[in-house]
């Protein structure tokens, strides 16, 4: 349900970047969303469709790249992909609580059209 709040924040960033780069229409937005982020991609896309109506990003395609969960062992520094939500080092069994990836919620790029003749 908080996808609506996230969609609103996303729109703010897109509007801000559009102004900065002189874009009059946004065609595509690329996002990275970690698999451990509490966000449902379909829900975010749906909410974005709603909040972006009548804005520069109306009708823009949202492309989402899912990022896997990786963690680093506190003891032996081994980095690994977390399986089945077990944050324990597969090498030494110690807690691996340093999350290297998996909670991303980022705008990576936007594509759109400028006003000038090209």
């Amino acid at each position: 349900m908080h996808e609506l709040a996230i969609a609103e924040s996303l729109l703010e960033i897109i509007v801000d970047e559009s102004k900065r780069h002189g874009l009059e229409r946004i065609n595509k937005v690329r996002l990275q969303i970690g698999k451990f982020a509490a966000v449902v991609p379909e829900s975010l896309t749906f909410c974005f469709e709603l909040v972006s109506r009548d804005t520069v990003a109306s009708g823009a395609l949202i492309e989402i790249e899912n990022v896997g969960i990786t963690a680093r062992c506190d003891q032996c520094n081994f980095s690994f992909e977390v399986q089945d939500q077990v944050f324990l080092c597969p090498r030494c069994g110690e807690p691996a609580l340093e999350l290297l990836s998996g909670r991303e919620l980022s705008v990576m790029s936007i594509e759109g059209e400028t006003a000038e003749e090209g």
Partner: protein
Amino acid sequence: MTEIKVPVVRNILQANERIAAENRRRFDEAGIFVVNLMSSPGAGKTSLLEKTIDALAGRIGIAVIEGDLQSSYDAERIQKKGVQAVQINTDGGCHLDGNMIQIALDSLDLSEVDLLIIENVGNLVCPAEFNLGEHEKIMILSVAEGDDKPIKYPLMFQICSVLLVNKIDLLPYTDCDMSKIRERVAQLNARGKIFEISCRTGEGFAPWLSWIEEKVGEHRTTRARNDSAHPAADKHCQ
């Protein structure tokens, strides 16, 4: 018309993160220990607050920010205990965010406060994504909810430094297996502390209260250090 691609690389929640960091600075300057208390609805957040306030009032200055979709019922419950409480109504919103806390802080007199507890909206999903500026995230799981919750809501269990397992007086009447909770939480968050409590009977409260008091003490020390580093203006006048 030219079609261009602009690299952005910005965290979508950066606006909230910025405000949370401002809140945190304010808490640290005042030497206040702040917790973000989360759980599903009905797990016992407000009951925990009432019991904790009863036990610590007089020794520790406490204030509470209550988050709910509607009503000021919880803030009134807390105010009856004689501590400052401010209610935030999210009007349907499923979580608190940094900005709501920043606004609520203006309604509190923080000068005598050592411990600020923010009771989030009852929800095991959304509040996990929004930092408020707190020092610790704490969650309550009541045994009646079942021992499978860490599997179903892993992010919440992973990010909380303390898990309070409440309503342990009901254990004989449920199929909840405490060893499964401990085992599942250990996989997600091996350094997290677990306190087994009953807000109804008061069982298990002593270790929880000691933990809170210890944390409050650490943050008071920071305040004392800040005060001695920046002596009050009147001392300069003497």
